[in-house]
């Protein structure tokens, strides 16, 4: 790598009272149990030009439909928790109505223009209710499922303790394995769909749902919360150890207006996807997957989220990951959405004392992608690793926003995000490490490295530190550079062709992130993806 590098070990930045006041010490907890904590619309400081309220209107209209669909469900238990969730959705849609779509005038969205998303129309799969993992008689069939042959799912699956498949945001039990006690999962472990839990006993999830995920100033978290209904629930009790990963697979399909007859034949054949394409473009799908992953005290869990799809669609997701004291959680998000897709998703990590959390973001697909990763380290002795690899070419836009809150002393956080850009791709890395007052002995490291393979690609990188403690070690750095000409020549001088040499070095750039992936199937898939995507990938395959 060549290019400018800034490596600035910062000892301690002494906070002024003003800046301390401007940055709240703790993210306000917003949750089902605290609807009063939700911001009232009049608290908004945004100006009209900072938000696009018109873009929000179709979602507000659809939310009314969504409410009607929910009210028609017979199975919802009559519990205070059910009503709390209704209040949460109501608060969230109110907040979204007030926030609207952010424009690039907002600092957090400065490089990510959502105008194409705002202009696009989407259709949501109608709500259906699942009871205990099986479709109830009154439920509509999964809309996209008939269009997906078993092969379409098998392409993404691997040996896992359980595989939950979601099609257009809805749990597809017929495509899933190992959920809700039917598989070999040890007793006490719950892996199922959120819709099923809400139908059976929402009390299993309300203690956590929305607890640490603020939508106060995150419009798409608000939007997801407003449509909160389905997604994955993974609950590990105290001391449980799951050696194989839990795989959560989200597939999006072009939304059929009417039943597509051809799909029945097509689902049997290998060319299903191509043959099933209707002549008239189907309206694009929007889905709001809401995932809750809770690793109990001293438990151990590996979770892989995979997002993929076909055609144009919009995935607006939220995953809440909670690690109880001493829990060890290894999380992966593999984003392989279609090139026409919009993917805007938030991962909210909450770590309790002595938990060990790692999350890997592998962002390969999508047309417009925004990954928000927020981690709140709220106990002593937490170790949190956040790794990322993003590839972008053509006109892809990939925006990674990271926020790590060191709220307690003696925690370590390690962030390494690497980007490979080609064509006219644009990427954003915006990372904040926020060390709260009293979070002494914090050891935080943040690094963002970008490799530009073309002159037209643009990588924006903005690592930031806000430190309000005086005995910490925090470093951050970012680089944007091209392939090292010396290294290219070195490889060529040994007989490796130029394209292969460049690919080999590109692969090498990504290799440390690849090597850190502990789930063999995920690592292998990524390697294969890179061999296929890089020119002369066969030489690379041979040489690494």
């Amino acid at each position: 790598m060549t290019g400018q590098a800034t490596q600035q070990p910062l000892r301690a930045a002494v906070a002024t009272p003003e800046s301390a006041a401007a940055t709240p010490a703790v993210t306000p907890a917003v949750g089902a149990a605290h609807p009063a904590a939700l911001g009232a619309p009049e608290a908004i400081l945004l100006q009209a030009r900072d938000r696009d309220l018109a873009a929000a209107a179709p979602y507000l209209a659809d939310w009314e439909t969504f409410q009607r669909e929910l009210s028609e469900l017979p199975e919802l238990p009559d519990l205070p928790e059910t009503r709390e969730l209704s209040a949460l959705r109501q608060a969230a849609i109110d907040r979204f109505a007030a926030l609207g779509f952010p424009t690039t005038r907002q600092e957090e969205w400065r490089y990510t223009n959502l105008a194409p998303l705002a202009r696009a129309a989407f259709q949501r799969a109608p709500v259906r209710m699942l009871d205990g993992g099986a479709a109830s008689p009154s439920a509509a069939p999964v809309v996209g499922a008939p269009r997906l042959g078993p092969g379409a799912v098998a392409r993404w699956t691997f040996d896992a303790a359980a595989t939950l498949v979601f099609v257009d945001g809805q749990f597809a039990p017929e495509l899933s394995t190992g959920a809700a006690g039917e598989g070999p999962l040890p007793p006490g472990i719950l892996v199922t769909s959120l819709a099923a839990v809400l139908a059976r006993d929402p009390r299993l999830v309300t203690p956590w749902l929305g607890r640490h995920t603020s939508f106060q100033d995150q419009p798409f978290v608000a939007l997801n919360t407003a449509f909160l209904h389905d997604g994955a629930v993974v609950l590990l009790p105290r001391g449980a150890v799951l050696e194989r990963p839990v795989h959560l697979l989200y597939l999006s399909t072009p939304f059929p207006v009417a039943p597509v007859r051809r799909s029945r034949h097509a689902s049997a054949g290998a060319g299903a996807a191509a043959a099933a394409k209707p002549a008239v473009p189907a309206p694009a799908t929007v889905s709001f997957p809401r995932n809750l992953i809770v690793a109990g005290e001293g438990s151990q869990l590996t979770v892989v989220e995979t997002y993929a799809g076909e055609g144009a669609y919009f995935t607006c997701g939220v995953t809440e990951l909670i690690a109880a004291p001493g829990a060890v959680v290894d999380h992966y998000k593999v984003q392989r959405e279609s090139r026409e897709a919009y993917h805007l998703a938030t991962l909210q990590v909450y770590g309790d004392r002595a938990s060990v959390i790692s999350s890997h973001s592998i962002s390969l697909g999508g047309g417009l992608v925004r990954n928000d990763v927020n981690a709140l380290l709220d106990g002593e002795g937490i170790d949190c690793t956040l790794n990322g690899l993003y590839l972008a070419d053509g006109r892809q836009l990939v925006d990674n926003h990271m926020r790590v809150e060191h709220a307690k002393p003696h925690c370590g956080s390690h962030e390494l995000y690497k980007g490979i850009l080609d064509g006219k791709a644009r990427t954003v890395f915006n990372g904040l490490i926020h060390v709260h007052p009293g979070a002494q002995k914090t050891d935080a490291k943040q690094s963002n490295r970008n490799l530009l393979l073309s002159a037209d690609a643009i990588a924006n990188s903005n690592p930031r530190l806000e430190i309000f403690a005086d005995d910490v070690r925090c470093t951050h750095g970012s680089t944007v550079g091209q392939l090292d000409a010396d290294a290219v020549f070195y490889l060529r001088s040994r007989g490796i062709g130029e394209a292969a040499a460049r690919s080999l070095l590109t692969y090498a750039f990504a290799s440390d992130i690849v090597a850190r992936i502990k789930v063999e199937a995920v690592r292998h898939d990524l390697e294969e993806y890179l061999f296929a995507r890089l020119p002369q990938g066969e030489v690379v395959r041979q040489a690494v």
Partner: protein
Amino acid sequence: MSLLEVKNLQVRVEEREILHGLSLTVNKGEVHAIMGPNGSGKSTLAHVLAGRPGYQITAGTVSYEGRDLLALAPEERARQGVFLGFQYPVEIPGVSNTYFLKAALNAVRKHRGLPDLDAVDFLKLVRQRMKLVQMDESLLNRPVNEGFSGGEKKRNEIFHMAVLEPRLAVLDETDSGLDIDALRIVAAGVERLRQPDRAFLLITHYQRLLNYIVPDRVHVLVDGRIVRSGGKELALELEEKGYAWLEALARSAPGAATQAPAPSPAVPVPAAGA
């Protein structure tokens, strides 16, 4: 036919002329040493022969086995048997030394019309060639040059050369930065690879290397020209007298560039400047 024939080579880097008409002939099986002070153009010559981008060839020709070497891409030169041992070998994290070498060897073999070596035969070859440079086997499984000591990097270059079996090996200051033990090992490796169908161009600042590798010819490069050529005794003379007298000679003889140095008898040494 000579293996390598450089005629009146003139090379510029960013508008500055580095080589001002260099001529050199290397035959099969010969070992030539190119000596000279810093900035004389030694490394430029090595890089131009290997095809490093960034050099403008303004005049002259280089023929290798009768073909125009300058028309070939670096990888094509490598596949045709030209090897450059780098003064500063590049670290390539994430690429295994062994697998990379296998890809390189198979690229070379493909060009020669040979089938790919399978894993077993390749490992056999690698083990055998590692012994030549007394390289630790652990370096095989590490990424290319990553975390290698200076000596390990240079040994790795000789190891690559031993596996790729070039017909012309250009070693650019392979001796610099080596302690005497490492130097002996590297030199012994080169000596063992010396064969009737393989020529070496040793580029060096110091005579030291030539205590272990006895060259057939020694050329002294000063200010982008070969100012003296001779047998191995020239190296000893340089060791005694340093380069100053030759630099003075180069300054006082502007026509030096047009001399055809290699086959001609050594120019009588004038006392000038001494």
